[in-house]
């Protein structure tokens, strides 16, 4: 198995979370998607819900989102989110 995922969670005005983690779970318009290393390239539109980062070096993180999309390519995940209500406290502490 290759190394962990490189994940960036970005909002319009700042980067919410950046680092490596094992797993990312995001609510797409067609249902939840779980991303692990070696997933095929995907670009998916997200709906309101919670983006969850699991097994990160600095612990887990969760973000409540309004909308957005996730793109996955060569184990690099970029989650672009529209800021929902204030980001989960766990995400905030992990980001800093």
């Amino acid at each position, binding site marked *: 198995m290759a190394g962990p995922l490189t994940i*960036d969670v*970005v*909002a*319009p*005005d*700042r*980067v919410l979370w950046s680092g490596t983690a094992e797993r990312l779970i995001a609510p*797409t*318009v*067609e249902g939840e*998607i779980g991303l692990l290393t070696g997933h*095929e*390239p*995907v*670009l*998916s*539109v997200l709906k309101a819900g919670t983006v969850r980062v699991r097994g990160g070096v600095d612990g887990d993180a969760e973000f409540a989102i309004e*909308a957005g*999309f996730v*793109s996955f*390519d060569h184990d690099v995940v*970029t989650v*672009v989110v*529209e800021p929902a209500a204030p980001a989960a406290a766990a995400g905030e502490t992990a980001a800093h």
Partner: protein
Amino acid sequence: MAGQQRVYRQRIRATSSLKKIFRAMELIAASRIGKARLRVEQATPYTRAITRAISAVAAHSGVDHPLTTARTDTGRAAVLVISADRGMAGAYSANVIREAERLRGRLEADGKEIVQFAAGRRAVSYYSFRRRELAGQWTGGSDAPTRETAREMARALFSRFQADAEDGGVDEIYIVGTRFVSMVTQQAQVLRLLPLEIVEGVEEPEEGEVQPLYDFEPSPEQVLDALLPRYIESRIFGSLLHCAASELASRQRAMNTATSNAEDIIRNYTRLANQARQAEITQEISEIVSGADALAAS
């Protein structure tokens, strides 16, 4: 003679109160610029991510979306000029407007009709003074743009692009703004927003290599539909942030120069005032001496 002195003193007073204003404006600009630059930096990853995603869809899906293909049916181009709300920023607004006029000349040479949009009071007054019709205008908050303004602009421009030729639809959308390169360099630049032309950050598949199959959920068209408005908004917001940082940097520089000019003027007038005072004293002495001489002689 005393009048001369008084005039100089008055000018010194006036100039030093101006100097205080210049200094204050310089400090205000300096204190805001850090935040403006930070906002530029923080917004960049988002813009980059969206741009990359758009490029990926355009490159890998092969969909023929109306928004990614050039249209040529209307013969019109929308131009959004982003300038400052206030002056006191050196040539900042003038540079942007000059760049916009250059673009206008180029587009008109190509036989395009211009649909003009303007943001910032300086640009709005420039165009209204020349009695050019503005399709849309936004003023206020040029040094601290908000997402809402960007969203409004995006909506206005985007609806023009989607409209039919009879309803004032446009072929292309340009933004004329200023790029914040560094504290001392800001560059007026033209950015073509639509149709999309940038494909950056996507590796070209090598010869013989199987093109990576992107999975688009729900479908490439729907992904594009969801992405494009956001892309436009983020590009506009990015431009606004760049412009705000540039405006503040220009203002700080202009006010710094103005302060030192005011100091020069004060120094000159102080010298002249001293000279006038000295001349007055000399004259008084010579009057007294010659008066005494005249009395002694008689």
